[in-house]
């Protein structure tokens, strides 16, 4: 692929002029190492700037060469340059060329800004590449998820696999500013929108839009982390750039047609759930409630069905009336009513697990590629059909890709890349903490009765049509109280979404002079996204329907000039360009108000009250010019200068222009003479850079406007917005510097890359929280100074390599610290987010970003928890509880191949960082979690009543005064004078109190995870050649194979992202983690 790109560029240098007396130079190019014919090598007559790439058989031919003596040069990436003097004095001259590979192939090519391929050694900043094959080791289809752990300094906050097609977030180098922005995604030069959408009502997550990128089409991904690397992409690159290059065909005479077919079948299963207790049933007390059945006059044991907690009677087999025994109609659809039925009260340990399905997905991919002397093409089609572990959830993604290039003549090339993706989702699961009834998983982990038999809930409509629920108000009133049957929500409240996405570009290139080319490009990224959400009639929630249509269009017009020249020992490679970016977004959202006029008639016209209808439009233009030049000296020293100026329509007119620059350099130590004499350090490069990148704002934040409120009856309303717009804003500039070294030992068998960076962001444009008493809640200001500093290491080794065996190991590790040096004047603290139930995230002056503040345990000077005389931990409000971001992150990969077998394993780890688990908190509060049962320090069940020395039942008693048969949870600490104390506190009271101690529900986010395992078998070549198959492999891969270490049970710290917003420091109502097993087939013809 990279060869192909070079050919394109070099193909521009051909000239078509003719002279009177001419001859032809021709010959064959071979690989010196193998003796094989070498295709695609650029063979050039330097003086004439005339060249030809070698064809499939390694042949080249340069015609119409005027008689004379010339320098013939053949170059290919990863091979030493070949150069010889040729004298043309006859009709035909033959020069055969043999290219030697450079040792360890160190002249790797990296795709940098604007698709410019650059030799890695010339780059003065850290860029890390991941090949497309490495991304798709296992079947993770979201590019963000697939990058997890594979690039140093990249932290991915994933989502549960149950959230099919859901959003993953990415952090490059910690957080890069107060607002924790996301990097820019660029595919083949086209910026790709990566917005995430969720439904407003119940947190359904419709995915981050970069997830549309089909990973099977990806050739490679370059992660540009620092400003020097990304600055040329302009203001949106201030959080880095994920640069994606897709596959194309190959240029050359008689390129073979290559057909690639991939098929995989994936099974998803829930693999991580909170540990539940299976000893006590639903209720608020351990007593059965006696109820007289009005039909037979008998008294029965009942549970408190209205309770959605599990502090109820022991599940010891006592006979009782389950919830469904109070419905007159047949509840489970077996033909007979369950009315009056009694059963023994026993546990159902797998009831939650039984709710989930095995998810199944089929992914079929076909690509056809090829090329000729003047044209290349590649088309691909992919279809993925998936059903999730959440019942009734489905996702269907179809994508088409086309990549075609034409060499019109010696001067003209053009290239088209088109991608179309259609995504259809149905039943995407609700997420997050919701006060309403919609989220089944929230119910299981927070508000549930442990004894429930999931199968009795499946048939959520009794035979007489009434909706059934376990959570009935009482034995005689079977209307649901807080919760409908979870299956009702899943099967009747079905959202649907559909997105048509198109992105691609058209490029024309023209070779003005042999070393001067012009390229004009049009890039487009367009989507139309329709989301419908429904709440069915008859459930607890008011029925409703909403539909949101969103359209986005971003067009970039770009023109660039590339010039290369040499002067003695210096080489110059320059690029200048201009870009016009147009962003056009509009949406129309509407929802019914006050219910549906006709049951289950899902249409806006069914709105009982005036529906909410909202149209929104957002336009922004950015105009830019930029230039870069790389100066090289003898392949030893390179210097790179770049500069860019942007004009943004969103900034105030007199401040809408901003300029920034970058300087970087590299020094290839190993090219020096004295280094050539040793063979330990085979390659060494030092690099350094200093650069800036500017950032501006979204539109319409300059002028004061007013808001239109909801109507009061037929009267419209207006209000003064809560945010002060600011007509004095200016662009924010962040600047950074970095140093690094790229060292390779023992012919490249050991590879080490080190990088240090320091980035400062000043005058960031933020929506600053101000005291509401000013009349506003926020003010948009330039404020703050923010530093991120960090260190990244990549280590690779090929410790064992023989004919049959190959072992490859790679590891990466990164640490970063983000510090808030300064906030706005007079402000030392800024609230970033408030999680449910009062856990706060702050940016505070002089501290690490992401301070977590919440009520915590009050401690004495020695760190002992203070316990009040009522047996409760004393609470310190607004306690500082540490920081959000991890200490370090990384990944480790081991690939072992033996003959035709290849085993890949990929581990990912994170040390430190914290998250707040609402699931765990409610698991305890509601008596559902395993922690709420067991024996206390006296050896008695901790849920037994707390008894004082007289045997009287109390809420809490000092341990010393407790009866020997007392229950209760041990609460230990010191009193206000520092003397050790211990109490037994009644379990339900204790966990209700712990609900208020948020510190208890903060967990260390460290984990080690065997993220991916992949076993592949390549079918033997001799077998395949008989059936004219070029390559064939079969394999099995596992994603989320094993959570090896985590400080918290039942929640996966690597997948806490729920919904699409926020700073990813809490989970709640989160979907369970899933494990995927895929069976893969890959055929090439």
């Amino acid at each position, binding site marked *: 692929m990279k060869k192909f790109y070079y050919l394109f560029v070099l193909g521009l240098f051909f000239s078509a002029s003719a002279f009177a007396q001419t001859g032809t130079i021709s010959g064959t190019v071979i690989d010196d190492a193998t003796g094989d014919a070498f295709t695609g090598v650029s063979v050039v007559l330097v003086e004439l700037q005339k060249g030809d790439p070698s064809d499939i058989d390694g042949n080249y031919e340069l015609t119409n060469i005027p008689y004379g003596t010339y320098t013939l040069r053949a170059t290919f990436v990863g091979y030493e340059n070949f150069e010889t003097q040729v004298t043309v004095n006859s009709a035909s001259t033959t020069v055969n060329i043999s290219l030697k590979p450079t040792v360890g192939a160190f002249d790797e090519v990296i795709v940098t800004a604007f698709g410019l391929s650059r030799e890695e050694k010339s780059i003065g900043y850290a860029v890390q590449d991941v090949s497309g094959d490495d991304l798709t080791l296992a079947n993770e289809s979201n590019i963000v998820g697939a990058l997890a752990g594979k690039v140093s300094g990249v932290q991915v906050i994933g989502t549960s696999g149950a959230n099919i097609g859901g959003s993953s977030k990415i952090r490059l180098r910690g957080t890069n500013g107060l607002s924790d922005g996301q990097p820019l995604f660029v595919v083949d030069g086209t910026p790709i929108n990566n917005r995430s959408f969720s439904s407003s009502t119940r947190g359904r997550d419709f995915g981050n839009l970069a997830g549309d990128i089909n990973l099977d089409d990806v050739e490679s991904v370059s992660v540009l982390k620092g400003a020097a690397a990304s600055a040329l992409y302009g203001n949106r690159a201030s959080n880095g750039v994920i640069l994606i290059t897709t596959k194309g065909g190959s240029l050359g005479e008689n390129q073979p047609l290559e057909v690639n077919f991939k098929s995989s079948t994936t099974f998803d299963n829930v693999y991580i759930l909170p540990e539940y207790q299976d000893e006590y049933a639903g209720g608020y007390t351990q007593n059965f409630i006696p109820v007289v059945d009005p039909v037979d006059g008998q008294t029965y044991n009942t549970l408190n069905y209205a309770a959605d907690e599990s502090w109820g009677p022991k599940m010891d087999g006592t006979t009782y009336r389950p919830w469904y025994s109070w419905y007159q109609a047949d509840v489970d659809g077996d033909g007979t009513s369950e009315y009056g039925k009694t059963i023994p009260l026993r546990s159902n340990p797998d009831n939650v697990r039984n709710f989930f399905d095995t998810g199944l997905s089929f992914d079929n991919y076909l690509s056809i590629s090829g090329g000729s002397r003047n044209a290349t093409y590649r088309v691909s089609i992919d279809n993925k059909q998936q059903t999730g572990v959440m019942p009734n959830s489905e996702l269907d993604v179809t994508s088409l890709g086309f990549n075609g290039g034409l060499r019109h003549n010696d001067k003209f090339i053009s290239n088209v890349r088109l991608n179309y993706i259609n995504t259809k989702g149905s039943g995407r699961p609700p997420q997050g903490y919701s006060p309403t009834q919609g989220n089944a998983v929230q119910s299981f982990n927070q508000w549930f009765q442990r004894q429930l038999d999931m199968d009795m809930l499946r048939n959520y409509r009794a035979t007489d049509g009434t909706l059934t629920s376990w959570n009935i*108000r009482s034995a005689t009133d079977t209307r649901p109280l807080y919760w409908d049957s979870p299956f009702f929500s899943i099967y009747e409240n079905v959202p649907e979404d559909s997105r048509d996405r198109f992105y691609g570009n058209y490029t024309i290139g023209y070779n003005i002079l042999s070393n001067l080319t012009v390229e004009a490009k049009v890039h487009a990224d367009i989507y139309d996204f329709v989301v419908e959400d429904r709440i069915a009639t008859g459930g607890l929630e008011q029925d409703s329907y909403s539909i949101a249509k969103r359209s986005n269009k971003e067009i970039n017009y770009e023109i660039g000039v590339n010039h290369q020249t040499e002067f003695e020992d210096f080489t110059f490679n320059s690029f200048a360009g201009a870009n016009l970016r147009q962003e056009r977004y509009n949406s129309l959202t509407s929802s019914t108000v006050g219910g549906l006029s006709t049951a289950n008639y899902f249409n806006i016209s069914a709105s009982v009250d005036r529906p909410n209808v909202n149209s929104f439009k957002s336009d922004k233009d950015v105009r830019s010019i930029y230039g870069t030049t790389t100066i090289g000296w003898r392949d030893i020293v390179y210097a790179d200068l770049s500069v860019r100026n942007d004009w943004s329509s969103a900034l105030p007119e007199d401040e*809408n222009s901003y300029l920034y620059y970058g300087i970087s350099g590299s020094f290839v130590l190993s090219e020096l003479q004295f280094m050539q004499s040793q063979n330990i350090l085979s390659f060494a490069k030092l690099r350094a850079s200093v650069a800036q990148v500017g950032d501006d704002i979204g539109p319409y934040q300059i002028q004061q406007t007013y808001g239109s409120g909801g109507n009061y009856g037929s009267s419209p309303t207006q*209000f003064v917005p809560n945010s002060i717009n600011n007509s004095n804003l200016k662009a924010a500039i962040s600047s950074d510097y970095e140093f690094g070294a790229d060292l390779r030992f023992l012919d490249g068998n050991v590879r080490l890359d080190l990088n240090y960076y320091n980035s400062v962001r000043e005058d960031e444009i933020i929506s600053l929280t101000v005291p509401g008493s000013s009349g506003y809640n926020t003010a948009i200001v330039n404020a703050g100074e923010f530093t991120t500093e960090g260190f990244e290491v990549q280590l690779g080794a090929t410790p064992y390599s023989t004919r049959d065996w190959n072992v490859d190991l790679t590891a990466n590790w990164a640490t970063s610290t983000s510090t808030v040096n300064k906030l706005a004047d*007079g402000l030392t603290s800024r609230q970033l987010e408030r999680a449910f139930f009062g856990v706060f995230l702050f940016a505070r002056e002089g501290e690490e970003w992401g301070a977590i503040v919440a009520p915590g345990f009050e401690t004495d000077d020695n760190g002992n928890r203070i316990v009040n005389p009522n047996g409760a931990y004393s609470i310190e409000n607004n306690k500082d509880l540490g920081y959000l971001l991890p200490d370090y992150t990384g990944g480790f990969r081991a690939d072992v191949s033996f003959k035709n077998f290849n085993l890949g394993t990929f581990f990912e780890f994170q040390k430190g960082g914290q998250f707040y688990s609402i699931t765990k908190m409610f698991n305890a509060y509601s008596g559902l979690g395993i922690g709420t049962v067991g024996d206390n320090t006296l050896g008695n069940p901790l849920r037994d009543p707390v008894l004082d020395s007289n045997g009287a039942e109390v809420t809490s008693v000092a341990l010393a005064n407790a009866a020997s048969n007392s229950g209760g949870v041990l609460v230990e600490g010191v009193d206000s004078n520092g003397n050790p104390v211990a109490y037994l506190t009644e379990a339900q009271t204790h966990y*209700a109190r712990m609900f208020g101690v948020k510190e208890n529900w903060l967990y260390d986010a460290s984990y080690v995870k065997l993220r991916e395992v992949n076993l592949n078998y390549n079918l033997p070549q001799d077998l395949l050649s008989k059936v004219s198959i070029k390559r064939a492999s079969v394999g099995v891969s596992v994603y989320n194979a094993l959570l090896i270490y985590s400080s918290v049970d039942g929640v996966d710290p690597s997948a806490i992202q729920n919904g699409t917003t926020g700073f990813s420091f809490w989970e709640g109502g989160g979907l369970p983690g899933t494990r995927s097993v895929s069976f893969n087939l890959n055929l090439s013809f």
Partner: protein
Amino acid sequence: MIFRTRKNKLSIMKKSLFIGLLTFLIIGCSDFGDINVDPNNPSTVKTDLLLTNSLTSISAVVGATTGTLYVQYISETQYTESSRYQTSSFDFNGWYSGVLQDLQTIIDLNTNPETAPDVLSGGSNGNQLAVANIMQVYYYHFITDRWGRVPYSEALKGNENLTPAYDGQDAIYADMIQRLKDAVASMDGGTGVRGDIIFGGDMDRWEDFANTLRMRIALRMSEANAGTAQTEFNAAVSAGVITSDVMYPYLAEAANENPWYSRFQTRTDYAISSTLADTMQSLNDMRLTVFANPAPDLDNGDGTVELSEINGMPYGISNAGDITNASISFPGSAIGAGGPSVGQQDAPLPIFTVAEVNFARAEAAARGWGGTAATFYNAGIDASWAQWGVDGDAAALTAYKADPAVAYDANNWREQIGYQKWIALFPQGYEAWSEWRRLGFPALTPAPDPLNNSGLIPVRHAYPTSETDLNKENYDAAVAAQGADELDTNLWWDQ
């Protein structure tokens, strides 16, 4: 001239033209025209629409739950943390950035000579100023009675002052009274205000409203500044107070429905408190049959509500335990509650009632500010029974007024008025809470399982936590002047 190739010359020309044009577009100008003019929000404002919006916030004063819990009108059923005073910090930011700022904008636009002529579609400038000022005082009074010292004189100045200082409550009270007087004075006899969902632009009724509010404020400082209280109270009464109940008009539409109706749509979190139910049952107070629905287990099903069918929920216990929904009474449809098909979506809630005016005047008389206390006291009971539509049974009303625990006793006026006002103010929780704090009656027992440190019923709200971050200097000064920022610090008028 660079393009020497003959082939494709035309298309090259076109392309070079395109490229040239593009270059010109990019480099030629930094002028983006109107592209950054917000199409989603209007750049101008109509004061009548601002007023409508400002008046809808009354619902959040009269329909709130917190006060109804503190004075034990209502008991939470299962999740009782609020009843047990778990929350100490309450947020006032939204009141300022929301309704107070909207009203300030009406005031500014009508005051500025440049804009005043443009906003006459909202009514005459004087009348708009009057209503906007009255309503600002209404909301400020509500705010200062919850938090005490609050930003006032320096508030609502936007960028000019992002960190407003707090004013003492005595100064706020003095200014509120002055502003009410000025507001009435500024009424210019011109076109009444438009967008008025309370009085339909009837300026006479706004005058009564202003005087009634002034009367309420004056009475509130009866113990902190008795002299001014008496003067202003009497002046307000002579200027003319309301003669019919002022109700907040909810609509039969989801966006503007009664909040008690909303609360019972899908949940049953709030029951009638046994504190209220037991007191009223013991006095045979028929208003309870409207305040509460029968407990299903006690309902004899004859379609009329009897006192004996009502069972209150114990207040402030840690959770419902085995108390089922079937055994307790929920609020009645008269305040909107009861859920779909049972509740009344557009049930109005009281802002000012004739009963309150009468009890205020009874108290004034008892304090020796003039008038006959017993007359006003009995008139208050009559007005309240009438307000709730239970005055049809004249014998019950007469018997009630004659009950020794009810009949006016000059030696015990504080307790009697305290109890009667408490019942009459139902369900205006915040107003009842203020009057309980001031009078010390009814005698309420704090939640048995409190979550606050003192275990006492709160007497103020703590400031929003954001103030310690965003406005620390002024916050610290306020706390130093007022006392610890917690629920137990008494306000200026409640010493």
